[in-house]
């Protein structure tokens, strides 16, 4: 079955022009020397947490599985350095969740486990099993286990694979650098997904502010007529799954539905590159390319770091702090999580750490809503943030449900553009929690 590949993106609603601040886009990624210790949290993905299969005192090697779960929606965790397990302790993640973490003291040798060898794949089942074993989760930030995503439910037909290279968050350039530095891995990864899932249309979707990526990827996929690099408008939140699918295919994922409902699978480009490398080498997900930037950091760049390294070690590697950071973000400024200290470890789906100085961390005092309607105009989900905020604050759960509060993807366009500085998406998050809490009663 042949399908047409779009020449230009389709129209989408809303969004905002955010400052790009892609300061690190042209800087080659640096490899972090093995840190003294890493802490590997048992929850680095959406789904069931893992249970450690090592204990304090064990010697582990790079790529050795140290934790797994029997649940389908989960992903195993592998040692990112070689050395000794010193403790299994509770640690708090950026979002405030308290989880078990395996602390490994590095011996500095980065000795690779003998288990690490290319997987043998002869069928779709074996392919999915290998993806599961790799520990891969959505590396764009969502952290959804990839083997679950690639396991298309019966009765659904997927005809399009979209490789998400939008990277619409300000500052973050890890996908950009990945596309430049790991082009071959990306091609191998997408060809494997194409082959095993029987997909004949692949769209590599890149925002127009990355001409070097567009050029390099276009050359790399020139041999395959079923793969196309599509230039998207550089407008936040272009990389949000539902927006991206509409831009690439003019299809709309139904409310509460999944991309597979409209025949699409969306994979982040870094996930695709990892997959390509994993199929060739068998090295599971133990390292990550992370953008380190922000007004408080001396020497911003992308750092390839073992998973479990502390934020602090990354900051030190990038020349340390220019001045005391007032705010530290995991992720971009639009959707990232602000954390309470710099001891938190890097997890699989992290793609950026930003250090904001006092000025950049400054928050606007909210004033009264003037009903300008900007939030309504910019909402990619066609919601009415100003009303949702009012209903959430008044705890009017029925009205929240009526206005489809759960359809909000928390992109933050509303709060970004509000001239009164209203905490719109923040209140909507609270509103969503109210709806969820009522559902549980």
């Amino acid at each position: 079955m042949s399908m047409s590949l779009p020449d230009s993106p389709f129209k989408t609603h809303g969004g905002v022009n955010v400052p790009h601040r892609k300061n690190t886009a042209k800087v080659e990624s640096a490899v972090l020397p093995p840190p003294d210790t890493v802490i590997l949290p048992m929850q680095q993905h959406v789904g069931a947490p893992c249970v450690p299969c090592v204990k304090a005192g064990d010697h582990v090697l790079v790529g050795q599985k140290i934790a797994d779960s029997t649940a389908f929606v989960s992903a195993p965790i592998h040692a990112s350095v070689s050395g000794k397990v010193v403790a299994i302790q509770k640690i708090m993640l950026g979002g405030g969740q308290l989880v078990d973490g395996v602390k490994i003291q590095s011996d500095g040798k980065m000795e690779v486990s003998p288990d690490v060898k290319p997987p043998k794949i002869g069928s779709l089942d074996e392919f999915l099993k290998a993806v599961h074993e790799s520990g891969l989760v959505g590396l764009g930030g969502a952290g959804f286990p990839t083997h679950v995503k690639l396991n298309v439910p019966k009765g659904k037909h997927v005809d399009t694979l979209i490789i998400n290279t939008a990277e619409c968050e300000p500052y973050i350039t890890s996908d950009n650098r990945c596309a430049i530095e790991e082009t071959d891995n990306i091609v191998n990864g997408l060809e494997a997904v194409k082959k095993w899932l029987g997909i004949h249309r692949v769209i590599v979707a890149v925002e127009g502010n990355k001409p070097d990526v567009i050029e390099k990827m276009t050359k790399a996929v020139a041999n395959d007529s079923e793969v196309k690099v599509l230039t998207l408008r550089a407008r936040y939140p272009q990389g949000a799954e539902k927006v991206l699918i509409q831009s690439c295919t003019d299809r709309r994922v139904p409310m509460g539905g999944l991309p597979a409902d409209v025949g699409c699978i969306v994979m982040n480009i870094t996930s695709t590159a990892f997959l390509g490398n994993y199929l060739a080498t068998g090295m599971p997900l133990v390292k990550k390319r992370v953008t380190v930037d922000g007004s408080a950091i001396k020497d911003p760049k992308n750092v390839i770091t073992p998973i479990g390294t502390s934020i602090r070690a990354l900051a030190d590697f990038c020349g340390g702090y220019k001045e005391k950071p007032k705010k530290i973000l995991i992720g971009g400024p639009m959707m990232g999580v602000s954390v309470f200290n710099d001891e938190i470890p890097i997890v699989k789906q992290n793609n950026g750490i930003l250090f904001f100085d006092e000025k950049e961390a400054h928050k606007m005092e909210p004033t009264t809503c003037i009903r300008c309607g900007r939030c309504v105009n910019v909402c990619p989900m066609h919601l009415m943030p100003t009303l949702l905020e009012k209903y959430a604050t008044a705890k009017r759960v029925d009205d929240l449900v009526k206005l489809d509060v759960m359809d909000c993807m928390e992109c933050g366009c509303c709060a970004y553009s509000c001239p009164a500085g209203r905490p719109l998406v923040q209140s909507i998050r609270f509103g969503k929690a109210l709806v969820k809490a009522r559902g549980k009663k």
Partner: protein
Amino acid sequence: MEEKLVVSSSPHVHCAATTRKIMLDVIIALVPALVASIIIFGPRALMIVAVTVLSCVVSEYICRKVMKRDNTIGDLSAVVTGILLAFNLPVGINPMMAVFGGVVAIVVVKQMFGGIGQNFVNPALTARIIIMNSFPAAMTTWAKPYYYLHSTDAMTAATPLALIKQHASPDQLPSLLQMFLGNRGGCLGETCTLALILGGIYLIIRRVISPIIPLCYIGTAALLSLCMGRNVPMDLLSGGLMLGAIFMATDYTTSPLTKKGQVIYAVGCGVITMLIRNFANLPEGVSYSIVLMNILVPLIDSGTRTKAFGKEPVKQ
């Protein structure tokens, strides 16, 4: 780390727009019309504007103090209300009446309902209507353009709309070019269409307003004027239509949130304006039409809510 970090919910960046900057843009957009009014009606026009602005700002300040609320004069919305109110008054008005208008606009219409963003009708227009009903004679005595340059005292003129209402012959009306430049009787800020359009273009370029409301309002008025067999260009250039469509009907607080709602609202403004002009005793209907449609905004809003993404059937 000894010093605590700021922890907050995303987003962690904000665009440059603030309420104050928006109001400042509106003030800038009103400058051409202000300059035109001073040229046409003399320095007294500036005095009236100063009086209403002062009255509005002082009222807002005192009101917030008495209500023990944050001081909001810094958002400049009271300044905008003051200028718009002056633009809706004849230049010869007694300054005390102008002061009274400012107090009504800010205290009664705006602050008693909670201040900026909470009023359900346009403060400047409602104040104009109240002054008009309190002092009908003063509000319908129109100075002739450039009266201040002539030594003869108190030259008054009828507005073109009043002339039309009295079935005046066409040669008694000013030419269309004179109308466009504002050389006619009328409220001090409404006469110079050229200046008002310049301000409107500025607001659209700055994305402070969308062209939906002005275009739908003016378009509807033009269409109805045509259907009623009236003089279409004369209708568009006279009265407060341009001022109303560009600056008053587009007030955020008292206009609908969605584009669809704005179309309904603006068409409604156009219809009521032309109904009043054609069938009612009053020569002009812009203030009443906008205020009436302001009252319908909550209803329009609840009927024109957006439809969430993915609610429609799947297209594949």
